[in-house]
């Protein structure tokens, strides 16, 4: 008996397979492991869409805020300033101010200004619109990631999909309550706005409709705490959450949780200026389109800090503070796809697929032994090594094992023995034709090779296409299958030949084809 290079290769592959699949099999802490898909371990999978067009609208709104502030600071009188979803319009009353205003507008980046007479139209340049949309998605991903990190979940995945979609996977979620809380945290726009109450018309808010309010440059917003409460606020906010630097949970005099926020220096400056000239008027603190409080301004407020009070539990206040700290979503997100699997169902799925794996494997192994004798045992050995290699490769790649992936592996067992069946049939043919043992085996491998290669190459090609065009589950399926194909070429074609070479002398001497190849004994063989 002598070692040959095929055998050495097989042994090396076996060691590789066992060593690198051990961490996954024993679930040890160390080493690269296969991660279980959410369908097997339970968890929440969401595909979120981003309404990027809203990011453009909100950008226009802050352009309008800027124009408003500039005009007030420089005593330029403008009228009917309004921001729609695609442009900002206003009238300049005194033409003498045109030079100063144009100078300011020129400095606002990414905008296109059209002025005819005193009417101005400010739009966002098309290239800038594209940039804004991309930024909205990237920012949403960043924000969601931040929020989830602070939420304290194990290994959340937040990734961009396509142009304007976000994939969120949370394996740690166990109950529907936890899931709900996570979803709320993610979806919260957390858009803080400080707005002035329109004191001249505030009395009439209950008789006014949207259209009339818009006509005055106002907006009607619901109260967050009183179901039927309404507030009439100036449409253009004084400032928004982008100038926020911190948000913490605090407690008011009645020991109810509140959220205390701090503004940056720009924000503090604007806030101070506004409160100084609005003493006696009310300031609305607006979060996600709802008015939380509208205190009367008693004096100039410097320092740039404020408080949001509502009927929160401490947990709610905490989540809200996280959301505010991690920043507002530039654009709202919505659910395109959601899959949540409870841990008990995942465990059931693992049990079912393992049962299928073991019994399918058992049937194939018995059948091969029964039909081919020792040749069948060799083929079975190749399949076992093959399975180890698949697991090892998947562990090293950090691949995810999903339910369809499990099905792919089960199915692969049936197909993996095929290479050996083709080879064994060829070898038997050689024996029948009276070819000597050594040559029959060599020719059997050589002839079978061409067909197997042709077929495997075609299948690998199909797998590649599957991987490129497939989504999650199908991708997993393609990965396990193609790794199986590659591993089977090594174990079934190269490795099993190595074993025959090892035993070649014995086979030649014994001429017991029934034992070695499961053939019926015949004359002359």
């Amino acid at each position: 008996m002598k070692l040959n290079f095929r055998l050495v290769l097989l042994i090396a592959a076996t060691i590789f397979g066992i060593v690198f699949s051990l961490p996954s099999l024993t679930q040890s802490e160390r080493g690269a492991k296969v991660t279980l898909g959410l369908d097997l371990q339970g968890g929440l999978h969401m595909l979120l869409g981003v309404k990027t067009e809203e990011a453009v609208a909100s950008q226009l709104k802050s352009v309008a805020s800027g124009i408003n502030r500039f005009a007030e600071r420089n005593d330029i009188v403008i009228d009917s300033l309004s921001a729609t979803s695609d442009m900002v319009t206003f009238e300049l009353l005194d033409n003498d101010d045109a030079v100063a205003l144009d100078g300011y507008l020129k400095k606002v980046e990414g905008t296109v200004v059209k002025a005819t007479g005193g009417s101005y139209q400010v739009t966002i340049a098309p290239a800038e619109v594209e940039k804004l949309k991309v930024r909205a998605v990237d920012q949403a991903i960043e924000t969601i990631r931040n929020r989830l990190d602070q939420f304290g979940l194990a290994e959340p995945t937040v990734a961009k999909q396509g142009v304007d979609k976000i994939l969120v996977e949370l394996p740690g979620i166990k109950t529907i309550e936890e899931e709900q809380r996570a979803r709320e945290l993610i979806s919260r726009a957390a858009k803080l706005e400080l707005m002035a109450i329109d004191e001249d018309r505030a009395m009439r808010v209950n008789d006014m409709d949207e259209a009339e309010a818009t006509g005055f440059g106002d907006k009607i917003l619901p109260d967050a705490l009183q179901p039927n409460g309404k507030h009439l606020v100036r449409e253009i906010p004084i400032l928004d959450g982008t100038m926020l630097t911190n948000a913490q949970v605090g407690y008011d005099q009645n020991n109810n949780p509140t959220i205390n926020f701090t503004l940056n220096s720009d924000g503090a400056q604007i806030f101070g200026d506004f409160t100084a000239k609005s003493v006696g008027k009310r300031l609305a603190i607006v979060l996600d389109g709802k008015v939380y409080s509208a205190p009367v301004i008693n004096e100039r407020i410097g320092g740039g800090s404020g408080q949001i009070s509502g009927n929160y539990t401490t947990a709610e206040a905490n989540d809200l503070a996280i959301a505010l700290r991690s920043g507002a979503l530039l654009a709202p997100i919505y659910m395109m796809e959601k899959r949540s699997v409870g841990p008990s169902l995942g465990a059931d799925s693992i049990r079912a697929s393992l049962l299928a794996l073991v019994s399918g494997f058992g049937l194939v192994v018995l059948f091969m032994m029964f039909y081919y004798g020792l040749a069948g045992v060799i083929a079975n050995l190749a399949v076992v090594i093959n399975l180890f290699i698949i697991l090892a490769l998947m562990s090293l790649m950090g691949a995810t094992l999903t339910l369809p992936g499990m099905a792919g592996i089960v199915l692969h067992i049936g197909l993996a023995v095929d290479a050996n069946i083709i080879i064994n049939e060829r070898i038997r043919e050689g024996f029948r034709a009276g070819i000597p043992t050594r040559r029959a085996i060599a020719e059997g491998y050589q002839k079978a090779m061409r067909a197997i290669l042709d077929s495997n190459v075609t299948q690998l090609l199909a797998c590649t296409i599957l991987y490129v065009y497939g989504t999650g589950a199908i991708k997993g399926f393609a990965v396990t299958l193609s790794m199986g194909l590659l591993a089977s070429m090594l174990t079934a074609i190269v490795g099993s030949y190595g074993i025959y070479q090892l035993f070649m002398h014995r086979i030649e001497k014994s001429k017991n084809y029934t034992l070695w190849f499961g053939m019926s004994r015949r004359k002359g063989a």
Partner: protein
Amino acid sequence: MELFKEDKVYNFLGKGKIFFFASFVLFFLAITIVATKGFSFGIDFTGGTVVQVKYTQTAPIDKIRESLQKSKLFEHATVTEFGSPQEVVIKTPSSTVGLNNDIGDTTKEILKGTGDFEIRRVDMVGPKVGDELRVKGLTAFLLTLMAIMATVTFRYEWRFALAAIIAIVHDIVITFGFVSYFEVDFNIESVAALLMILGYSIHDTIIVYDRVREHIEESKETNFVQIINEAVSRTQSRTTLTSLTVFFVVLTLFIFGGDIMMGFSFPMLIGVIVGTYSSIFVAAQLVVWTGFSVADYRQKMAEKVKMRAEKEKMRAQFEQGIV
């Protein structure tokens, strides 16, 4: 053990007309079934929501239906037992867009009072996603067919490729005729099954083609029908054996995989049977009908060999500096 007598050449093509007729009938029956019955597409394609609920006692299906009817979201909902009497699946074409209060939460609210239950799975797919999946699935399928066509043409001949593609389409159409007839859920896993059958079918067919090519190249036989009969007979043993092993594992998947794997295991089960049948009785037969000529093929092969020899001669001359 040996299942087939090695020396015998079975006359598969002699019965060609019968098999062709059988395939033809099955094929058009399948198309008719799919056309009239359609598929019960899963939410992966149509959009909608599936909620799987497990009760600690037998699920009160009537009570669940009654409770659900009060909500507009569940107007067209169906409630069916799933795997065991304790477990039900609620399916509705509605889906929610908001993250804050989705259908899973609503279901939990509505089902309060129907008993002690646990929501084990909520799958919700918006309508946009379904459209995208359909387009992607179809693209993947057509691209794969084209890739197969190209490789088989490159390794064999275009007539072989054409016959292989027809055989694949034959297998897939008949399989999905069964899927339609038995109203098995057609979901994303079914697409995986479809592509798997495609791979299996082409694999089986190539093994037979390889033998055909070998016979053409190595024997003096000029009768193509005889060549095919011999090739199919020689590979029949392996075709049957492999089909058996694959069938074993697919059967275990079908039995133990449960309802959740149904969309995958059922089409696979049928596909393996049809695929085996077609690689024995249909694929090679079709090559005959495409007008393949053994003499022409041999001539082309001879030319190829001659060209290669000439090229090598030229190179040898070039290397020796004669040219």
